[in-house]
């Protein structure tokens, strides 16, 4: 099948599937249709990758003669803006209505006055990065929708009305938006995908319709509308200069950072920062965790925030020591450090995961800001490993929550005994996220080297302190989960098959990426960036082998008595009452259980204080970036 047909299939099929899921409300239909669709889309994505590889891995630019598409996508844009305005009006949010109306006005200006001047020759463009993203969306994104089948069945038991058909439909539309983003070269099309993902995550966050969900959904929408406005302005400005393609923009920016590219790239960077939930906009992603867990998994791993990262990595060649580059470096590095430290204070597992996502996206943003090949190498691998590991972790936490009745890390004490299989997957996900021989840390290592090379001392310090905090909050979580208690019984029999399927898929992906890291680097990413492997291929092979050993140990370890030798109770200063647990005889001769909570150190690192500092500093950096870029354009471009 030719590439263009496959691309069309990937963009259109999820939308059709969404339509069917909206119309046919039967749960048994979903149980069959979603896995089949997921398999089809995954196969389509893999086929694209194979065709692309057979073509030598060279970028493919396609022309597409069809005026109707432009009109349809413009109408979709308008429809999104109008519906946001209506929903916000009903929710009594005048500011959001205003933002949506401005958006609509900008769209009208762009469509009627500017777009005809912007030249677009090849609206579709597929390079290695697009293919990597297509695989992430096609395998991880659809895998999460499969997980949702079983999860939402459990979830429905506590809900009043059955609106699951909406939930599934929105998830699938989301995928269409993502494919549109990663394959489009036409900035107007890209913008349409951008807005689809914004509105889809709004609907998913507000799904439960509780007061909190509605509030958080509105927070998400105003923040991302700001980003959308920046994107729309970027399109108008670039259109005025005749630029209608992303590749043209990047090529111009790379050649010589001219007036127009500096301003446009800064605006696009701003838009990506809102989408990637960087400070000061990080709160929308924290608020997103009120939604059912598949939503979080989808937003964090393969869609939404990754759209921001995708755009930034694309723009990386146009960054560096210029206004957008410096803005991205500072915001990303600062967000990484602050949110890593803030994660220490959290005992809610989903909140820890959210902070960790924001922190890792911060690293990607900073790497894109540096824009050197080594930094871009790091950014791409951070994206891949984060997608696999974070989806795995969210799915594990979601399933654990349904079976132990809590998403608090303290309640996951000795999960190794209570949910043996699930907790091992969870620990593997965590290891992949933060420690050496695993992928994220190797990418972080490359990022560290790129930071040092960029002569940005602030970034070096922020990475050093942020990394230390990262170790602390993951290690204490792993410690709790991997404790073994002899008296506990397993409670994981009731886990739905679709959940196991998706979780196993994510775990296999996370491990496979770790083990095949050297090959992916050598055959895929290095040729794309034209560099030799970031941290040395021999080092990568060594790490890959070590990772295999660690995974084998963590999966194989049981904690049961081995048969050789005696098993002893723990030491309780000689006053223990029963051998297994931590019960001892207190000073009144009464039984008392020794309990212990992890350290959260709220007194040292206050979340509230750090949030305020982060919002002020983040806002300042962004304002500086936009104003500086504007002044630069006015100053030099004043004669135009």
């Amino acid at each position, binding site marked *: 099948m030719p590439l263009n047909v496959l691309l069309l299939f990937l963009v259109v099929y999820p939308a059709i599937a969404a339509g069917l899921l909206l119309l046919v409300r039967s749960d048994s239909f979903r149980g069959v249709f979603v896995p089949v669709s997921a398999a089809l889309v995954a196969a389509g994505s893999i086929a694209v990758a194979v065709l692309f590889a057979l073509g030598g891995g060279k970028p493919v630019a396609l022309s597409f003669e069809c005026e109707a598409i432009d009109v349809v996508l413009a109408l979709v844009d308008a429809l999104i803006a109008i519906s946001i305005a209506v929903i916000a009006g009903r929710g009594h949010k005048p500011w959001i209505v205003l933002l949506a109306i401005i958006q609509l006005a900008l769209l009208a200006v762009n469509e009627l006055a500017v777009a005809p001047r912007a030249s677009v020759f090849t609206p579709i463009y597929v390079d290695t990065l697009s293919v990597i993203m297509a695989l992430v969306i096609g395998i991880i994104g659809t895998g999460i929708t499969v997980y949702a089948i079983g999860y939402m069945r459990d979830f429905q038991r506590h809900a009043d009305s059955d609106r699951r058909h909406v939930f599934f439909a929105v998830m699938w539309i989301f995928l269409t938006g993502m494919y549109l983003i990663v394959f489009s070269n036409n900035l107007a099309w890209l913008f349409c995908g951008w807005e689809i993902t914004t509105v889809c995550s709004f609907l998913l966050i507000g799904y439960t319709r509780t007061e909190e969900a509605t509030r958080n959904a509105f927070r998400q929408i105003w923040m991302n509308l700001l980003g959308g406005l920046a994107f729309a302005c970027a399109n108008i400005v670039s259109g005025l200069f005749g630029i209608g393609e992303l590749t043209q923009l990047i090529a111009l920016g790379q050649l010589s950072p001219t007036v127009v590219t500096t301003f446009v790239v800064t605006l696009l960077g701003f838009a990506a920062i809102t989408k990637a939930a960087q400070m000061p906009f990080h709160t929308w992603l924290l608020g997103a965790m009120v939604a059912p867990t598949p939503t979080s998994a989808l937003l964090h791993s393969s869609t939404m925030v990754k759209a921001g990262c995708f755009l930034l990595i694309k723009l990386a060649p146009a960054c560096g020591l210029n206004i957008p580059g410096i803005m991205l470096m500072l915001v990303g590095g600062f967000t990484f450090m602050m949110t890593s430290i803030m994660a220490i204070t959290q005992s809610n597992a989903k909140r820890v995961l959210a902070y960790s996502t924001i922190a890792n996206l911060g690293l990607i943003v900073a790497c894109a800001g540096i824009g050197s090949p080594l930094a871009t190498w790091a950014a791409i691998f951070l994206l891949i490993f984060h997608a696999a590991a974070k989806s795995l972790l969210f799915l594990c936490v979601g399933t654990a929550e349904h079976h132990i009745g809590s998403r608090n890390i303290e309640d996951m004490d000795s999960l190794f005994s209570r949910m043996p299989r699930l907790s091992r997957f969870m620990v593997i996900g965590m290891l992949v996220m933060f420690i050496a021989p695993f992928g994220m840390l190797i990418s972080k*290592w490359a990022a560290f080297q790129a930071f040092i090379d960029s002569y940005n001392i602030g970034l070096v310090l922020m990475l050093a302190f942020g*990394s230390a905090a990262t170790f602390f909050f993951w290690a204490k979580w792993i410690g709790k989960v991997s*404790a073994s*208690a002899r008296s506990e019984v397993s409670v994981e029999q009731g886990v739905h098959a679709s959940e196991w399927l998706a979780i196993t898929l994510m775990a296999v992906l996370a491990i496979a990426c770790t083990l095949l890291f050297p090959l992916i680097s050598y055959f895929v990413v290095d040729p794309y960036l034209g560099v030799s492997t970031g941290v040395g291929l021999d080092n990568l092979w060594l790490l890959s082998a070590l990772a295999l050993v*660690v995974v084998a140990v963590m999966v194989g370890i*049981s*904690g049961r008595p081995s048969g050789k030798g005696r098993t*002893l109770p723990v030491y*309780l200063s000689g006053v223990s009452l029963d051998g297994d647990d*931590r019960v001892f005889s207190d000073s009144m001769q009464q039984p008392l259980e020794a309990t212990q909570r992890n350290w959260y150190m709220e007194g040292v690192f206050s979340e509230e204080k750090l949030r305020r500092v982060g919002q002020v500093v983040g806002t300042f950096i962004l304002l500086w970036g936009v104003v500086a870029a504007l002044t630069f354009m006015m100053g030099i471009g004043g004669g135009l």
Partner: protein
Amino acid sequence: MTLLKAVLAIAFLIGGPFLGGLIVGIDRKVSARMQGRVGPPILQPFYDVAKLLGKERATVSTAQDIYIVMYLVFVVISGCLFFAGGNFLLVTLLVTMASLFLVIAAYNTRSPFAEAGAQRENLQVMAYEPMVLLTAAGFYLATGTFDVAQIGLAQSPAILKTFLLFIGFLFILTIKLRKSPFDISTSEHAHQELVKGVTTEFAGRTLARYEIAHWYETVLFLGWTALFIIWGSPVGVVVALVAVVVLYFLEIWIDNNFARVKWQVMLRYSWWAAFGLGGANILYLYIINLL
């Protein structure tokens, strides 16, 4: 060159525990003399470990024993990589993995004492990690490489350009060597409020393995210290060895003269040391590299 690297790695693999055990034995003797005691024989650590290895197999948790094996394995791998002249940053990252296994092992039994020790060990890693990363950055900026072999064979000692980092490194070396005032997680001295912290539930072979890992670590961290001072000539090797002996004596002296501090103090001091000394030194390196 490759042969020399292999020889050094194997020398660490085989000789590491002997040298490390000897250092610990001398440490105990010198400490005893500082306190006006006669002290145990210098070979006492070896007698202790030999006895532990011969003990009956009895454990609180078999999983814990496996984690300690992994701790030992990762310390040995990172040490071999270091003495074979590998990538310094990679060595530090693998040492962190080793520490993670120690933390998990201590959590594993759910013993209140060991778990409190695990929290503290975890905190210690967080306290020293920024300084370790900045040290790696300093070596890279001073010599243009993370490669231990190239740093060690440079024309002039790295310390000439990384003096402040070196001072900061000595600060966290006290944490890494588990010396007072920063022996917060293990309570190395006497029977204190945490019993024996992270090691409370280790017994027999597992405790022996933990001790051996500690010997390997001691040699490895003294190797890191030497890397600041060594340069590519026989004189450089001798100077580095003498310096390490003097510095270790200084560590013993500190160990015997300072009471254990609270964790808040340790965290604050080591982060400020990393920020102030490390940051200033890296700024200096950037400036001289630009000029």
